[in-house]
């Protein structure tokens, strides 16, 4: 039953299944079919090995001690920053701030960049397809400082009309906060063009890259984006670490985020002065082992031809998209041209949670719910959807299993 079946190749890319030991386990006696990578991706042995080697060989706190291990750990931590810089093609490593996740990266921008710049009536432009992590920080500014959230709708196919977005950017807009890739629809936004339009009106842009960084090749300098947030655990890296790219001019003008050790220049009884970026925004002991894991994950991802991964994931998406056309009880939500490898759908007469429970018993892991995107659920008049998301390790057999599982669920519940 658990015999290793050689995956059918999609184009030139061979899914590196052997690097992900968890993928060979079974669930309820059935082979695991992991289609929930948009929630969190599995970790290759290279990432786990790098973290383990660092923790067993070179670990200590960073930037503190003068001793050997502290120097080694500091070096590893700063090398990880350099790896993130390279991955995003940022100009300087100092433009990379480590955070605990993507959510914290966006909250950092809200608290340290935007909050001091918001007067009542000032506007923040965002789309209805944002994840709650790119909504709630702006709601804070609405609640606390009278900011106005200007919502940009998407088309029925989930695509973004850039002219609608552009029209929403007005003289009172202080920031455009937009996803690079929707975690529900898979829609990839034309970030470079969005940034150009916003900059033409003097408005900075924050991109939520939690999905985008995984599936798109990101060049923050080419995009000219002001802020780009990512999270480690969706990038085949560990939990507990994310990163914010921000242009140096912004970071230098930003007030501190959390207060504590590491982020100061001098503390007296009467006053405090702050360190330069990025240390100013990294109060307390940072995720040190996780930084090594994140760097290993980015190195791992970069060791492949990213375009080949993308083609592979798209082939799986198309296979699934075509297969579900035969289910007249299933409606796909999000068919934007050029979308990433995420398939969300609602099913007539079958609630997403019932469906996910049945798929689960077939060994198939999908996400069911509102995906932390309730305004988007409202937009499409659904309470929840079922989502299958594809990663570099998925195979055509995974898609076959999903399609069979859906047919079974319909037999039970339909």
């Amino acid at each position: 039953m658990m015999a290793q079946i050689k995956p059918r190749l999609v184009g030139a890319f061979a899914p590196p299944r052997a690097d992900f030991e968890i993928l060979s386990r079974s669930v309820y006696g059935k082979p695991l079919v992991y289609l929930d990578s948009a929630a969190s991706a599995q970790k290759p042995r290279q990432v786990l090995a790098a973290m383990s080697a660092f923790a067993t060989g070179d670990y200590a706190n960073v930037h503190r001690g003068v001793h050997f291990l502290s120097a080694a750990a500091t070096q590893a931590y700063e090398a990880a920053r350099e790896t993130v810089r390279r991955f995003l093609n940022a100009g300087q490593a100092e433009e990379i701030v480590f955070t605990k996740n993507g959510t914290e990266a966006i909250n950092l921008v809200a608290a340290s960049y935007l909050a001091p710049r918001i007067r009542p009536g000032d506007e923040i432009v965002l789309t209805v397809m944002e994840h709650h992590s790119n909504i709630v920080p702006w709601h804070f500014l609405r609640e606390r400082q009278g900011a106005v959230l200007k919502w940009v709708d998407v088309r029925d196919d989930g695509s973004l009309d850039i002219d609608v977005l552009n029209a929403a950017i007005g003289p009172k807009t202080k920031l455009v906060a937009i996803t690079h890739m929707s975690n529900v629809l898979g829609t990839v936004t034309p970030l470079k063009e969005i940034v150009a339009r916003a900059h033409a009106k003097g408005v900075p842009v924050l991109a939520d890259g939690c999905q985008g960084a995984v599936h798109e090749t990101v060049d923050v300098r080419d995009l000219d984006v002001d802020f780009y947030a990512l999270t480690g655990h969706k990038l085949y890296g560990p939990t507990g670490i994310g990163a914010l790219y921000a242009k140096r001019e912004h970071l230098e003008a930003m007030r501190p985020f959390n207060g504590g050790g590491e982020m100061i220049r001098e503390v007296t009884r009467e006053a405090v002065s702050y360190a330069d970026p990025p240390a100013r925004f990294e109060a307390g002991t940072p995720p040190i082992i996780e930084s090594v894991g994140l760097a290993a994950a980015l190195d791992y991802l970069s060791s492949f031809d990213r375009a080949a991964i993308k083609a592979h994931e798209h082939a799986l998406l198309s296979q699934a998209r075509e297969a579900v056309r035969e289910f007249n009880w299933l409606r796909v939500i999000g068919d934007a041209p050029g979308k990433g490898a995420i398939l969300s759908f609602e099913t007539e007469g079958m609630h997403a949670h019932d469906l996910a429970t049945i798929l689960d018993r077939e060994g198939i892991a999908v996400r069911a719910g509102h995906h932390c995107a309730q305004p988007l659920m409202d937009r499409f008049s659904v309470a929840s959807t079922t989502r299958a998301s594809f990663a570099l390790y998925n195979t055509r057999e995974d898609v076959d299993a999903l399609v069979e599982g859906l047919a079974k669920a319909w037999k039970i519940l339909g």
Partner: protein
Amino acid sequence: MAMDDSLRELYQEVILDHSRHPRHFGALANATHAGEGFNPLCGDRVKLTMAIDNSGRIADIKFEGKGCAISQASASLMTDMLAGRTVSEAETLMSGFLHLVRGEDAADLQGDDRDRLNVLAGISEYPMRVKCATLAWHTMKSALEGGTPAKTE
């Protein structure tokens, strides 16, 4: 391979029937107690209205809701069983039901009540779904306590 027996038990005909044809569906115009339950994780919603008479008897009870088969079937079954009972009987039944769906000792649940609620006993094998089954019951409790919104997550 035969369909997973535990799934068959979870989604047995009684459950599917209750979820497709919910009993006591709607809202009471003459409600004395009302409650609203919401599961923020999956978006399940239950609105409950009850008419409780002077002797503490639930004279009438209705629910409206949207959600998974388990949450809707549980609400339907609950309203069906609570109509005509006293508030104190309702609370006892709830305690027995919670024991049952959590896979705990449900000795306090007896006879016909046990038989009827047993259709949801299989949920104890699905820890992520227990909250779906208990939503209506927590909503009932909150309605009795004055209508603070119930939440299960």
